């Protein structure tokens, strides 16, 4: 009997049967993910309880803040936007197994150039203006990532180190441009205001949720379609999973690795632009934003599959909002969230975490299948 028809039968039997027929691997992934989240949350809760003046109140903000006020909810959605975008960028690069950590620089200068575009180029052009600014930001990201990516493509220069260096290079070039060339003389550290029509429009009146959300959703969907619904996406994943196999299948391995990074860089630059035009009225970043690192966390949570990015983004943004509210309502520093995220990464990525349980699950599964087969056999007979 063909195995594929077996799978179809399972689908017909309903969701519960589907869960039972889920592969052991998937079940174990879910278990491991849940345990990692529980450990991360547990540590955060313990730290809150130990340090907050009023732990009950602090915890209530941490756990439920987004539902307490419209503003908090709005903040959560604001946080979701860059998480989804950089998550998509890193998913694409990590799918090709390229440890490119250069998004920080692309985001910084992408945001800067978008701001400049909004100040000088299209200050009064609605809709098209912001679109152009975002495209320019993306272009900047493309060229910034192109440098380390090409150094790797041509000379195999270490991509981790070169992208980390690029980040600082971008920051200091940006700071120089800010302080030396584009600073509003009346201010200490920001540019002239971005044109009134150059910013992103507010999507939901009464909140700060801006139209960047639409772009973020589009990019996540596009990233998913690219990786899992196009032939190029399959090529990217083949390169990422086994470069020798990709070469054997006739793919140009280093070229595909290069292109995956360029796409990631472009999305990174656009992220910077969207953040700048959605939330700020002047360029005023004097440090790297951290959104690039967020992208790494997102890709890890989503297992490099953009399909899971919205869920992962809501999850992270939810607790970040809680921590943010805690920080001004209950005197607990927002940085707590980083501890939570770091711990989660460690356990999610731990190959050997719960490996004993995994073996047991495999054996149990094999046992169940054997019994099923035996039962089928006896029915047949």
């Amino acid at each position: 009997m063909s195995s594929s028809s077996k799978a179809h039968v399972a689908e017909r039997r309903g969701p519960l049967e589907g869960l039972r027929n889920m592969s052991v691997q998937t079940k174990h992934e879910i278990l491991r993910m849940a345990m990692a989240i529980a450990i991360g949350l547990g540590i955060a809760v313990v730290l809150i309880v130990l340090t907050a003046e009023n732990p009950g109140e602090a915890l209530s903000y941490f756990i439920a803040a987004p539902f307490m006020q419209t503003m908090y909810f709005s903040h959560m959605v604001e946080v979701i936007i860059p998480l989804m975008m950089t998550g998509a960028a890193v998913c694409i690069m990590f799918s090709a197994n390229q440890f490119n950590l250069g998004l920080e620089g692309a985001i910084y200068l992408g945001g800067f150039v978008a701001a400049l575009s909004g100040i000088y180029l299209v200050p009064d052009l609605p809709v098209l203006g912001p679109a152009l600014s975002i495209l320019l930001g993306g272009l900047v990201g493309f060229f910034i990532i192109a440098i380390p990516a090409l150094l790797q493509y041509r000379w195999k220069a270490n991509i981790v180190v070169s992208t980390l260096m690029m980040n600082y290079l971008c920051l200091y070039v940006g700071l120089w441009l800010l302080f030396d060339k584009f600073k509003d003389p009346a201010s200490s550290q920001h540019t002239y205001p971005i044109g009134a029509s150059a910013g992103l429009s507010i999507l939901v009146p009464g909140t700060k949720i801006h139209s960047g959300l639409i772009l973020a959703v589009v990019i996540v969907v596009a990233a998913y379609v690219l990786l899992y619904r196009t032939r190029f996406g399959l090529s990217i994943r083949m390169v990422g999973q086994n470069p020798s196999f990709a070469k054997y299948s006739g793919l140009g391995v280093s070229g595909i690795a290069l292109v995956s990074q360029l796409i990631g860089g472009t999305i990174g630059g656009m992220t910077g632009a969207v953040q700048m035009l959605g939330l700020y009225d002047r360029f005023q970043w004097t440090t790297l934003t951290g959104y690039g690192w967020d992208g790494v966390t997102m890709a890890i949570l989503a297992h490099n599959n953009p399909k899971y990015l919205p869920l992962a983004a809501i999850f992270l943004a939810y607790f970040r909002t809680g921590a943010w509210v805690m920080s001004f309502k209950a005197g607990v520093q927002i940085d707590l969230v980083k501890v939570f995220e770091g711990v989660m990464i460690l356990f999610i990525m731990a190959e050997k975490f719960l490996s004993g349980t995994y073996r047991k699950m495999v054996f149990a599964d094999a046992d169940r299948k054997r019994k099923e087969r035996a039962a089928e056999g006896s029915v047949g007979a």
Partner: protein
Amino acid sequence: MSVLEALAGILSNPNFYFTFLSTTVPILLPTLGCAIAENVGSTNMGQEGIMLLAAFFGVIASAYTGNVWVGFLAAVAIGLLMGLAISYFALYLQVDIILVGIAVNLVGSGLSAFLMYVFTGDRSATTSLQSGTLPFIDLPGIKEIPYIGTALSGQSVLAWVAYLLVPVLSFLLYKTRLGLRIRSVGENPHAAESVGVSVNKTKMYALVISSVLGGIAGAYLSMSYLPYFSKGMSGGRGYIALAATAMANNTPVGSLWTSLLFGFFYALSTYSGALGVPAQLVTTLPYLATLVGLVVFAIRVQGKERRRRQEGAHAAAEGDDGAARAA
């Protein structure tokens, strides 16, 4: 006044060399740490987080005990603990070592900032604490010598420690049993394993040493370079260390040279006012230099490989000719 003249002015200022030597220290220490880790075949990307935690807990321990040496020991202990934690996750639970580094940096920057507020109520720096600094060493006699005296005298005791660690680590790596094992494991773990050298144990030793060096660097930052802890004070030096190690081909002495290069530009950027060049642009120089250095290094490695292959093929062809003639 041209830039060159201004540069000459700065370079003839004895105080510049003092700054130069002290800005190099917090780069040199994590660079040496990364070099040890690279020698065993692991990339320790967590130096940022280690430095921050060590700097923070050093200040706290120093302030609460009133003894700055206790603060120093606390920083070292943090380095040790982080080294063990990194080993546990990277070696036992088999998390990708780069991701361990990223996670350690997240935890380090988050926990230090979080606890700073808990302990002090400050959000940006522990200036309200009396944490003190480790001793600065005056060199009577030498102090009076122009340039050399100004540059060397009055440096922190940890600066001396850092520079002395260069020969010490060279000795460790090239003259001791542990060093031999570290290099063997890094180059061919199967060879080490086949003669009973435990790969994981050796890696753990190297990662712990590496992280302790990061801990000392943290102590230097918050108890010498500055007299307090401030949020994110490692300032990307942990990442620079990775670059400096890569350019130094992972040797301690090479790490000294590349750290000095970064330290030089750091120091220069603090003098940029006199230089008439924007400080930010001066600060970009070490990063640019790294990119160029990486490429030069990569080209050299490739060239070596190509030569080896060619020689191999050449020898093979000759060997075949010989065999054909013999037959």
